[in-house]
């Protein structure tokens, strides 16, 4: 057996890990000065690091800050959920009043109008909102169509690289005028990126792959929706994005997700299921 392999087995032996069965450490180490030296170096360094390497605990102010921030997240979530519930309750209460027998016909008419009004006041879920994202300037509409083109081989990466920095550099050099986020992810292979143009403004897109599954991500500066009107998303969807960590749903065998991060709005389209994406991708990048 090569000496280096024996040395590394000595390290494993010191750490109580699995070693090569052919070695008998008790006798081999004692009978060979070379091995004994390696054993003592490995064990003494391990001991000294464990006993004298300074362990710096988390400062109390930071622990308190984190706990406070988590509590704020909880309070905001509870308040939001309560607001939604209260809205639903007031609608059902109204319907109960309207549906008194003597007012049945008029009540039914008013109920239809009320339901229409409530359905357009931001209470729609993400899947319903997606259906309302139409038009060539709509980012979600563009993203869904781009994804279909990628699957059909009509849209190919302009830059092919698994290195996030190279892709971001490409975005910058191609005129993308905002700070883009491209993340390397353990479970997905970064494939490359594309820069598109909308009214003279350059926009960043990138793609991941894993076992025949694709993730396509389109990101744009939030200002492009609010002030510059370069791109469009309905205001109730933008509001929902602002309130959530991310929105996700399955639509026509595709997963669609959207979120806001570092001043950009992101849209993801993938042929991977929701759960897989949440577990292997979104939990790593958000």
């Amino acid at each position, binding site marked *: 057996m090569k000496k280096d392999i024996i040395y590394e087995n000595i*390290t494993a032996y010191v750490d109580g890990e699995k070693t090569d069965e052919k070695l008998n450490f008790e006798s081999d180490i004692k009978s060979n000065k070379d091995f004994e030296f390696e054993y003592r170096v490995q064990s003494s360094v391990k001991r000294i690091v464990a006993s004298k*390497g300074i362990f710096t605990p988390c400062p109390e102010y930071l622990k308190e800050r984190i706990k406070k921030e988590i509590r704020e997240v909880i309070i905001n979530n509870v308040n939001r959920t309560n607001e939604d519930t209260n809205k639903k309750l007031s609608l059902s209460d109204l319907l109960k009043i309207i549906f008194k027998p003597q007012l049945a016909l008029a009540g039914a008419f008013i109920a239809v109008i009320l339901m229409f009004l409530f359905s357009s006041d931001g209470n729609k879920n993400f899947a319903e909102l997606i259906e309302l994202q139409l038009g060539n300037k709509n980012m979600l509409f563009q993203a869904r169509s781009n994804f279909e083109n990628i699957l059909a081989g009509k849209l190919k990466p302009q830059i092919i690289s698994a290195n996030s920095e190279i892709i971001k550099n490409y975005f910058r050099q191609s005129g993308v005028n905002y700070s883009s986020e491209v993340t390397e992810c353990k479970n997905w292979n970064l494939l490359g990126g594309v820069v598109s143009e909308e009214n003279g403004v350059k926009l960043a897109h990138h793609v991941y792959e894993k076992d025949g599954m694709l993730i396509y991500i389109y990101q744009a500066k939030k200002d492009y929706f609010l002030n510059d009107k370069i791109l469009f998303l309905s205001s109730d969807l933008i509001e929902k994005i602002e309130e959530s960590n991310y929105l996700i749903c399955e639509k026509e065998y595709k997963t669609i997700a959207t979120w806001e991060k570092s001043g950009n709005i992101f849209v993801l389209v993938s042929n991977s299921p929701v759960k897989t994406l949440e577990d292997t991708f979104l939990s790593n990048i958000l």
Partner: protein
Amino acid sequence: MKENKYETESEKLYKEFEDEALPHMDAIYNFALKMSGDSDVADDLVQDTFMKAFRFFDKFEKGTNCKAWLFRILKNSYINEFRKSSREPDKVDYEDVQNFYETIKSSEISSNHIVEDEFSKLLDDEITEAITKLPEDFRTVIILSDIEGFTYEEIAEFVDIPVGTVRSRLHRARKMLYTKLYDYANDRGFVKNSDKGKNKI
């Protein structure tokens, strides 16, 4: 008064998070500080890690290793957002380390004495500085193994390398540390019969 089920659910979630995840704040902070070498960066990393962990706590498989799960989140934050801005210690030429190590080894084997008790006279700060000066790949495995007590398999999953590479990196990392500590001990006159200043990397 009617019970608010959302408050109850959130309280339950927070309680679970408090029991499972928050006890690992010290370990996460210590690792973040050793990796970044900057307390402000460590603060941001730890805060980012725990906020993400809370956000995705419903995805955490109860009964599995929460500490390892938190370390994975920390690693992603570190790689994606902080590593680029932090300064990497000067590169170490492993061949130089190996040559120096072999010199110490032959002299110690022939003199029948191994410098190890002398290390205990070194200050804690010196040990910590020696760890911090290791290249990142080696520093990571030393901290995870010898300070945090992770198994090779856990380290392999964390660093995303095969178990055999963990073993080999740890072996080399400890050799590097040994030479560094020998240097410190020698400078402070703890090493007897040494030709002070001659054996240096």
